[in-house]
């Protein structure tokens, strides 16, 4: 704890770096996941197949996946960001599909029956109804990404993980381990509660 108080600037910079890496990956993942989810959600067979395959990919440990990406992207932050996009992607697609598939078919029929076109149905019916589930996906993806980005420090992606790995490498620097653990834990918990609050705000009133 004292390490954080002694080096507030450094810890803050690392946290910012951590957030930038995570945020960038999340942004790419969301842009990809929405169209993919929308595309496969109505095709149940295809959705099951793709979700199964993505589920297996998700099982691969993050450190292993980053290493497996090194031959393609090199031993640098790019491999970490690509891995982050892949994991976030899986969570987001899963939740977009779940959110859309959970919509009562009768509601969709009613919307079509009222003469809405595909775009109107998406904006006015599907998105608002699926939003809480999609936001839950964003929250989980953020938490997972924060965790993986911590490991990413070892692959020169920077972030709060640096403190943890330095603490291990420099014998006796347990203060750095504590500082890194507290900072990254606090970051994850704060984002988790913030996004959970956002989720509640957008929840469909029942």
């Amino acid at each position, binding site marked *: 704890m004292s390490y954080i108080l002694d080096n507030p600037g450094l810890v803050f910079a690392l946290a910012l770096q951590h957030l930038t890496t995570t945020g960038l990956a999340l942004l790419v993942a969301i842009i990809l996941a929405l169209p993919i989810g929308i595309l496969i959600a109505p095709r149940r067979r295809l959705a099951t197949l793709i979700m199964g395959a993505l589920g297996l990919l998700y099982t691969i440990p993050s450190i292993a996946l980053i290493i497996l990406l090194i031959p393609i992207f090199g031993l640098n932050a790019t491999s970490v960001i690509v891995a982050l996009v892949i994991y976030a992607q899986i969570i987001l697609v899963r939740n977009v599909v779940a959110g859309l598939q959970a919509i009562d078919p009768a509601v969709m029929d009613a919307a079509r029956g009222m003469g809405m076109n595909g775009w109107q149905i998406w904006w006015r019916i599907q998105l608002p109804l699926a939003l809480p589930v999609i936001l839950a996906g964003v929250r989980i993806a953020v938490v997972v990404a924060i965790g993986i980005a911590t490991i990413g420090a070892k692959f020169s992606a920077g972030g709060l993980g640096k403190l943890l790995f330095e603490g291990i490498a420099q014998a006796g620097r347990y203060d750095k381990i504590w500082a890194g653990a507290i900072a990254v*834990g606090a970051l994850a918990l704060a984002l988790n509660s913030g996004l959970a609050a956002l989720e509640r705000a957008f929840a469909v009133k029942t």
Partner: protein
Amino acid sequence: MLGQAFAYAVAHLHELIAATGQHLLLATVALGIGIVLCVPLGVWTSRSPVAAAMVINAVNALRVVPSLAILFLALPYFGLTFTSSAIALTILALPPILINTDAALRTVNPAVREAAFGMGMTQWQVLWRVEAPLALSVVISGVRTAAVEVMASATLAAFIGGGGLGIFVTRGFALYDTTILLVGAVPVALLTLVTELGLSLLQRAVRVPV
């Protein structure tokens, strides 16, 4: 590069086998302790709203903290040892098993439980003959999540002296050699996939017909 990694693996086959064994041992110990602790705890929380509110919330918060942080925090207390890694991995195994056991028992239809008591089953018989078979699939699903998590995080255990397949990763970083990194990464990926598939099959086998 994969070819070079394969050659390295063949050259260090004994070491690879020993590391795999230790990786599995670490994961099994953590998972075993996790099950022994969390299944009874889950039974308790599912029956007590107060316990559930406290324990489940604590565990959910624990789940959000990055595993690397939890793993490395074991170091100051237990040193660069197997024990250190085993304890940290056990902590990572707790949340999914506990949460799933709790949820599984909560979803048992109260009418089924009432019928069981009404037929003259003892507390123990209701738990063992009715609730356990009904909850088993969801509990195993929690064990599966925990197993994959532990199997993955055991790779990081090498950083705190826990051994396992992560030793190739630490060595790869030390020597700045991607080939050696891959020798750690590929078996770990395969192990987690096998764990995931095996436990999925088990989970399916014990599922209650609907």
